[in-house]
């Protein structure tokens, strides 16, 4: 079972395996889990903005990744996020890109 979304048959992604409140689905309070998900959506959204995409929570179980033109994909965990982001946007999502780093250094929020 995926510890992030509770879906049967999924592998646990390494980023979900640290027992911070909200990260372990089965052991944590529901509100903590929602808070952790909201934080993921916020931070990932800040990064994805630079590539013309956004991320939102879907039913507290998965994430929806969307481009500004409306292409949308369901994302299960962080392991799937970046390959899908590159696929639907047709852009290279490189965290070592000078322009991305400069934009993120420019301010915490878009």
């Amino acid at each position, binding site marked *: 079972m995926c510890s992030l979304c509770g879906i049967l048959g999924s*592998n*646990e992604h*390494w*980023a979900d*395996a*640290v*027992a*911070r*409140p909200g*990260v372990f689905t089965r052991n944590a309070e529901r509100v903590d889990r929602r808070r*952790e998900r909201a*934080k*993921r959506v916020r*931070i*990932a959204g*800040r*990064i994805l903005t630079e590539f013309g995409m956004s991320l939102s929570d879907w039913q507290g179980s998965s994430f929806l990744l969307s481009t500004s033109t409306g292409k949308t994909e369901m994302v299960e965990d*962080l*392991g799937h*996020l*970046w*390959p899908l982001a*590159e696929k639907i946007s047709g852009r*290279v*999502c*490189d*965290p*070592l890109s*000078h322009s*991305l*780093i400069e934009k*993120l*250094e420019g301010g*915490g929020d878009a």
Partner: protein
Amino acid sequence: MPDAFPDFTPVNLLTGFLGSGKTTLLRRLLQDPALSDTAVLINEFGEVGLDHHLLERIDDTMVLLQSGCVCCTIRGELAQAMRDLQSKRERGIVPPFRRLIMESTGLADPFPVLSTLKSDPVLRHHFKAANVITTLDAVNGLVQLESHGESVRQAAIADAIVLTKTDLTDEPAIARLMQRVRRINPDAPFVDAQGDHFDVDRLLSGASGSGEGAPSKGGFYCEEPVSAIGEAGSAHQKPVHSFVMIIDARIDWTAFGLWLTMLLNRHGDKVLRVKGILNIEGEDNPVAIHGVQHLVHTPVHMTGWPSDDRRSRIVFIVDGLDADLIRRSFSAFNRLGLPQPAVKITETA
């Protein structure tokens, strides 16, 4: 199986450049009584020169040595060979074994094997990655490191380096070789294959590729990463080099997860190793991480800090990536998750 046998059989990978003494080491391992409860996967029986008087043939691909060690050849898919071995163990055709050693001839990195162990629906319930052991020729090792990229990668991904043929050269030459290796792999312990204290059991149960166990003192928790790892000048964009990020601020796990997954998605083939001990916001004890290329092992919650120093340390062994850019990128991402305005990273390379 007896209770004493582990739920997950550790898999040690043995790699090394052509002629580096890998087969000699393997032959020696096979004869060691300490490995009586070990299975060994090799490419060809002929390579290790098994004495036919000392073995019992189980089938075309599997023999049982007199020592109790099971020896198999890999024909076709690795996953199939391992499944076959597991099946024979379950059915009692081969004796239960406590660990598996896999010879990875010609394999420059362990990623395909680790990936198989992690993703195969059968194998992942029975096996887990243990350490990567690389043999390095004390006579020709330096030349190989200078002229063969594959040799550099093999040294870079090692959890332990077995120096072979040390009896054929002198100490200054060995010291130069070790110094060279330290620039690309800061923490793998050296083991002298010719030494009096060569301990097979210790070698195989050493630093785990799964990230379990305490971090090595000389590794990502090294006290002096600059002298241990750094080269005069800058290590930026060298073909294979290592550097340490020492991070004063606490790390936001959410931002870190997004950053590392993004980095490995784009540059995973160039991140030969990432290994670290992290001071996570909201956690009292450190979390150890360990990744090989695109694959990151399940992070391990450590029971305490190895010293009073509570700073996070992450060692990267990379192929051609810019250390400064990685530091800047991490810092920018970490800011997104933390309330404080900036993260100070100590320059180390």
